[in-house]
């Protein structure tokens, strides 16, 4: 057994040391009727590295990898090129096989990285402070709603969700709110060229603890956060901005600079990869330092050691479950440390210049794609504005269309029918995302296939 260093001789010696005749003596506290006499039934026994790899490779090959087809999926997860050095660094054992940095004197590597990560996220979001990460964008979104409720001290229970918030994020918020008795006011998105900011603002009232707006939204449109922030603040509500594509913030203004109080999002685009949905990286930041003690999750802070050297520690942990137990700001313990490292390394490689170039390239290709695709007969572009993702109306059931295009070897995008199975009137809409990994040939392939399919 290649992962188990004890030999039978060791085991015998150690059993003698602990005064046990057999290993069963160490399991005496397990009632006989609960103890399995043999192996768990119906399971295979151990296998060689080669055999396991072969089995797993066969399963892997049953999937169509994004790199093997013209690929246009987004809707909260984006395919970007990740430099090879990112994966090299996150596979260093000192990062990969370390624990949460509870002993700071021997965890400065992780801690300094987290401090840098927090600083990068805060700047990207236009905020004062970011935490050391959450599970993913959707759970960060819920944690932001819960935090807004805490700030409102339970006096305001209404949470206004933009209709164009990612439906899975909205569903997570609705699920959790059932148990905290927050009242969730949502609506399905309307297929208009611009987000319905007026409609959203009209739903904010004195009972509202927070307004949740995705930026860019699920249809790729760009809401006017500044106006919404002013309207929310007028009613004493907080604005929570949700961003699922951090690359966009290399091109469009940061939510924190537009008046958002809490900015959360998915960090997967930078460094993490698609991975069929997880692990991803929840980003969480606040505009104003005064809200820091209400934040969920781990925070890394700067301090000095006994010799006066600069160093880093996890701090303000009196908010957290291991100290506060049932009074904690969140039950979160493990977060996404290694994904935060991947994000931070990739962001360091990019730097501001690289991020801006990356964002510009995404937008340039998206503009090309939008123009060429909307020239296909039967296809119209919905968006007045977009970054690297937009909505097409295709005049037929887009869900079936996506399946038809798979037959032609094209991963065409995400149909709104997949995202909103219960909503009427969204069936003919297709979300298309374009990144630097999309070539013009890919775009032309999609155009050709669409032309064929919509004949």
């Amino acid at each position, binding site marked *: 057994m290649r992962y188990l260093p004890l030999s039978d001789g060791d085991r015998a010696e150690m059993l003698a040391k602990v005064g046990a005749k057999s290993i069963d003596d160490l399991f005496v506290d397990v009632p006989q009727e*609960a103890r399995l006499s043999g192996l768990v039934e119906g399971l295979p026994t151990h296998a060689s590295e080669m055999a396991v790899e072969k089995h797993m490779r066969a399963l892997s090959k049953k999937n169509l990898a994004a790199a093997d087809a013209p690929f246009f999926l987004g809707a909260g997860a984006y395919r970007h090129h990740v430099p090879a050095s990112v994966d090299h660094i996150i596979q260093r054992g000192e990062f990969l096989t370390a624990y949460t940095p509870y002993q700071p004197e021997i965890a400065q590597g992780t801690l300094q990285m987290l401090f*840098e990560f927090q600083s990068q996220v805060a700047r*990207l979001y236009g905020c004062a402070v970011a935490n050391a990460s959450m599970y993913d964008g959707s759970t960060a979104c819920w944690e932001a709603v819960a935090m807004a409720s805490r700030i409102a001290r339970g006096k305001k229970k209404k949470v206004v969700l933009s209709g164009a918030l990612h439906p899975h994020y909205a569903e997570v918020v609705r699920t959790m709110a059932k148990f905290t008795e927050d009242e969730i006011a949502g609506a399905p998105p309307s297929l208009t060229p611009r987000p319905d900011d007026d409609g959203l603002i009209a739903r904010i009232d004195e009972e509202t603890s927070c307004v949740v707006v995705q930026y860019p939204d699920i249809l790729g449109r760009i809401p006017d956060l500044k106006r919404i922030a002013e309207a929310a603040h007028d009613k004493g509500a907080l604005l929570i901005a949700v961003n699922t594509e951090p690359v966009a913030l290399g091109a469009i203004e940061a939510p924190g600079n537009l008046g958002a109080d809490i900015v959360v999002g998915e960090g997967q685009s930078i460094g993490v990869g698609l991975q069929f949905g997880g692990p991803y990286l929840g980003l969480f930041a606040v505009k104003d330092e005064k809200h820091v003690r209400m934040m969920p999750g781990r925070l890394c802070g700067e301090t000095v050691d006994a010799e006066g050297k600069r160093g880093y520690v996890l701090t*303000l942990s009196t908010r957290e479950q291991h100290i506060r137990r049932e009074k904690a700001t969140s*039950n979160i313990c493990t977060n996404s440390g290694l994904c935060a490292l991947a994000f931070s390394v990739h962001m360091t490689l990019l730097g501001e210049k690289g991020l801006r170039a990356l964002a510009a390239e995404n937008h340039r290709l998206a503009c090309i794609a939008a123009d060429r695709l909307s020239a296909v007969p039967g296809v119209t572009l919905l968006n007045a504005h977009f970054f690297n993702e937009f909505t097409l109306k295709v005049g037929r059931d887009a869900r079936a269309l996506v399946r038809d295009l798979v037959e032609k070897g094209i991963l065409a995008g995400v149909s709104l029918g997949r995202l909103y199975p219960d909503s009427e009137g969204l069936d003919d809409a297709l979300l298309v995302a374009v990144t630097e990994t999309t070539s013009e040939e890919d775009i032309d392939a999609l155009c050709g296939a669409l032309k064929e399919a919509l004949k």
Partner: protein
Amino acid sequence: MSNPNASGWKPGTPVEGHNAMSGPDTTTGNRALMLEEPLIFEIGDTETTGVDFAFAGKLDLAGVEQPKMPTSASDTTSRLGDFARDGAIGLPGLTEPETVRHYTRLSRQNYAIDLGLFPLGSCTMKHNPRLNEKVARMPGFADVHPLQPTSTVRGALEVINELAFWLLKLTGMHGVAMSPKAGAHGELCGILCIRAALEARGDAREVILVPESAHGTNPATAAFAGYKIEDIPANADGRVDLDALKSRLGPDVAGVMITNPSTLGLFERDMKAISDAVHEAGGFVYCDGANFNAIVGKVRPGDLGVDAMHINLHKTFSTPHGGGGPGSGPVVLSEALSPFAPLPYTARTADGVVHLVEEESADSFAEEHFGKRMQSFGRMTAFHGQMGMFTRALTYILSHGADGLKQVAEDAVLNANYVLRSLEDVLDAPFAHSGPCMHEALFGDKGFADGLSTLDLAKALIDEGYHPMTMYFPLVVHGAMLVEPTETESKAGLDQFIAAFRSVAERAKAGDESMKAAPYYAPRRRLDETQAARKPVLAYEEAVPEASGTGMAAKYGGG
């Protein structure tokens, strides 16, 4: 016992002419391989990048017209409207060699399992097999989108289903919710299933019972789900006091959260009786599965009457902790709770096809294939859960098989007992009298000299080259030290660790004041946590230029 230091050298060993540990000051603040590293904000700048963009997306450049580098996101052809970001962001960049060096230098300031024994109790820091990493990076797993048409991700769904199959077999449970992102998220999933099941029968119960020895996540989770928390009393052995529990049960108790094996490293002997009593009173049993490593392949929680248990794939099933995540916390469920599991889930039908069941299809799918409606409590995360952890955990499980996993539990328990019995003469072991421990050995600070604490012992252990054990947890033992060696340690490795632990324990009892200033040999001495909390500095801010001679390197050391 083997020699704990084969080289024979120790700090302070006289070397002719000088003391090896206290050489001259260095200009850089570095000490040979101990390298100081500034922040990226101090060494990078916004004009440097380590990424080249091949805007044509082609390597064949000859004769091909290259699209121009876009000038600005806000140029006239943009579709960004009035939303372009014009101001500085302040993100520093480094070239690739600088980046690799920065993070490599940082990595060397970390302790890790790859470097040595990492005996954090309840955290199960076992070896992370590298085959897991290789498999997780196969393109069919790493490079697939969560919303691809299901016909293009059959293999991914099969991974989820195969892993679910193993988890159900190993636990003897009925269903499994795969999407929870970590242990605490899994706890929340289990408690929400319980609440949904109670609500479905119109039963509004308000209280969850949690023992004092529980992980902090347990009460935090139950409180988040809207429950009041009450303590479960313990008996002198540290186990749940069954009679006291029985007398507390009643129509207001929604359930109990019990960690088994417990955080004291003990198996709850009365687990089945506890479950029966809770069920009889109309409640449900949540089991915190953080310590499943001690019993995997030996005991099935389903046989003990458990209704819900999360499994930390990043503990028992060897997926890496990564400096604090990502984890993965699938929750196995009893038949009574299974219909309430969160979406999405995957299920294999009689025809062998693996189905992805989301909001739209849940009811019809469940009725068609399982003869009853889903009553899912909702959705916990955007997508399907931690796929990257599923591939790693399944790889690990297949490597070990049923026989290997049983051996895992046995070796983990044997190693912990070996530590317990090798140190109980020098350290107070409050529950050692009650029989063997499971996968972790618990000690207290009784007998330490005045003024010396568990913290001091931990920091002295750092100087000996070990990551310390879990400290001050569980709360029920004064100055608790919870040692979990795991099964991936050799006997020689344990012997050296025991010798080191014994020596620091003896120093603590003898009143060695030098321990108060430990560690001496780590990249940093003790850090001032009070200052960090009193005046939090949580993000980098550019320093105000200072008088000459006190530049960044002089101020912070190194450079």
